């Protein structure tokens, strides 16, 4: 089945070839997906392996001088130690001696999985609710939309914090196929997928999709061809799927792309607060590094940069889709005079 028409595809490729930003966005996203997918192959160390003698090592090439107070023969002494990072830990290590580069790679998995599945959940819920509300109208519509209003009265992050914090972090362990097949060794044998977190980030974002789908359904319900289809005996389900859904696809795709970015930010915030249930996450690492800002700046900085680059990439893709699918929004191609 081809979702995208020939015209849409042409517009996408044209916009892409003209936009440097779209190319950068795609490159960043491809990089992130590659990192997440092949993390066990790329990572130099097991991201959860601790080594206290290797704690707080600076990134490769960075020299760090730290002064420690030690008791030598019962006497207080200030000992200056100078460490220079090596390529063994290209991005340094955290306070427990875990390799940051490996953690960044595996952290991409958490962000990407939560971003994708959370968005899918939001799209699924939102679009179904919105289509039903808009298509049937009346009381169903009123009830569902009032409920949406109530949901909107809570800021997404506040609601998410409350839900995740209160429901508790349920996680499932998904076996890593590469490890299971014996392709790599010394890597974690499973991936911790934060279930509660994923559902909650979906729940707090479904309303936007519901609104779009409802609007489309409302307007399309009145169209002649839908009335005709109905008079020919087409079932509601069939009309919704065949006529209403395809028409609302463009705004949903654009919104979903941007929502992946928003959800990754949300995930990192919740992980930062320690509500996610997984310890392999960029947000979690940033929280870990907070206590070492004075001595080991890299622990908080590097995972944060990873978040920023990933989200920039997805936002750029979103801009590209929006410009290509709906040229009216930016006014880029507006009248020349």
């Amino acid at each position, binding site marked *: 089945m081809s979702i995208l028409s020939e015209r849409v595809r042409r517009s996408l490729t044209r916009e892409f070839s003209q936009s440097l930003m779209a190319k950068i966005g795609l490159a960043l996203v491809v990089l992130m997906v590659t990192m997440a997918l092949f993390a066990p192959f790329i990572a130099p160390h097991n991201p959860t392996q601790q080594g206290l003698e290797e704690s707080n090592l600076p990134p490769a090439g960075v020299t760090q001088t730290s002064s420690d107070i030690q008791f030598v023969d019962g006497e207080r002494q200030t000992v200056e130690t100078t460490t220079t990072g090596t390529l063994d830990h290209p991005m340094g290590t955290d306070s427990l001696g875990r390799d940051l580069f490996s953690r960044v790679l595996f952290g991409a998995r958490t962000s990407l999985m939560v971003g994708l599945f959370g968005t899918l959940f939001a799209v699924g819920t939102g679009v179904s609710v919105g289509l039903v509300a808009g298509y049937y109208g009346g009381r169903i519509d009123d009830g569902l939309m*009032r409920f949406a209003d109530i949901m*909107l009265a809570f*800021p997404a992050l506040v609601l998410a914090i*409350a839900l995740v914090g209160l429901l508790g972090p349920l996680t499932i362990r998904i076996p890593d196929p590469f490890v299971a097949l014996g392709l790599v060794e010394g890597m974690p044998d499973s991936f911790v997928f934060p279930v509660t977190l994923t559902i909650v980030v979906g729940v707090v974002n479904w309303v936007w999709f519901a609104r779009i789908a409802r609007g489309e359904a409302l307007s399309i319900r009145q169209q002649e061809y839908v009335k005709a289809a109905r008079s020919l005996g087409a079932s509601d389900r069939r009309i919704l799927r065949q006529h209403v859904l395809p028409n609302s696809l463009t705004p949903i795709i654009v919104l979903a792309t941007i929502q992946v970015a928003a959800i990754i930010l949300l995930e*990192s915030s919740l992980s930062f607060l320690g509500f996610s249930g997984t310890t392999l996450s960029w947000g979690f690492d*940033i929280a870990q590094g907070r206590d070492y800002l004075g001595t080991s700046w890299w622990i908080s900085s590097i995972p944060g940069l990873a*978040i920023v680059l990933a989200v920039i990439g997805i936002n750029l893709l979103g801009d590209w889709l929006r410009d290509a699918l709906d040229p009216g929004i930016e006014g880029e191609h507006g009248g020349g005079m």
Partner: protein
Amino acid sequence: MSTYQFLIRRGLQGLLVIWGVITVVFLLRFMTPGSPVDFVAPLDASPELRAQIARNLGLDQPIYVQYAQYLGSLLQGDMGFSYIRGRPASGIIFLRLPATIELAVAATVVAIIFSIPLGVISATRRHEPADYAATGFSLVGISTPNFWLGIMLILLVSVGLGILPTSRRPIGLVPAMEMLIFQFETVGIQTWIRHMILPAITLGTYFTAMIVRLTRSGMLDQLGQPYVKAARAKGLPETLVTYKHALRNTMIPIITVLGLQLGTLIGGAVITEFVFNWPGLGTLIIDAINVRDWPIIQGALIVIGVGFVVINIVVDALYARLNPRVSLE
């Protein structure tokens, strides 16, 4: 429809939403695993003691009775007693509220002061360095998690340069102003400002970046409209063409978006407070969630929800006032 009628109708709708908010918040407790008693009672409490505690907290009643009691006491401004601190939840919450409002307002002011001129410059100097700088800033701004931005600011400004404090702020705006007015002492307000700068930037950056984007695309759209050409043709100064004509029409839709995005701002405030150990509602909620202090959780969520509903009504009224085409339907 007159403005009053509009406000009344919108207010009634708002009341309905607020009632829904309260109900959802109330039900939240029954949807989450574990009983509040687990958190309140000592670990080795006897079943009798546990039952006693449950009775004291009113948890032995059927759910609808509890609901009615909760609604009834809310109407009297009573949000129950904090399980942990034993004091009225409403008192604790309203003591924390000013800090959050100060932070949110400061961030909004920062955002509006910087974003609108940036957005306008970006649109009027399209494809010039200023435009690239503004769009680059806004892209990074909307892509940066604010808790990380806050930590980086602490790292650079406080740890690195040693300029601004990171400790919990010792003074709120009201006492600082009282000090200024009654004792002619500026140290209070200075301290307040010094503690406010980093959190306000942290919270305001995302907002700034977003408004820059909205303003830029809105201005580009408006500047291409025939009425702009007509305004230029009649010899109007470019300042007025840009600000009086195009920006005015740009701001009308932006205001609606801003109203909706205030939720993001409030959410961001929660986590910004956490980073800066800010004595506001955000830290209160996070602490309360960790110990399941239900009266505080519920009360704070309701205050946030109600505040958000009220802000949105104000935004709607403002929108209707600015846009002559909307006759407050």
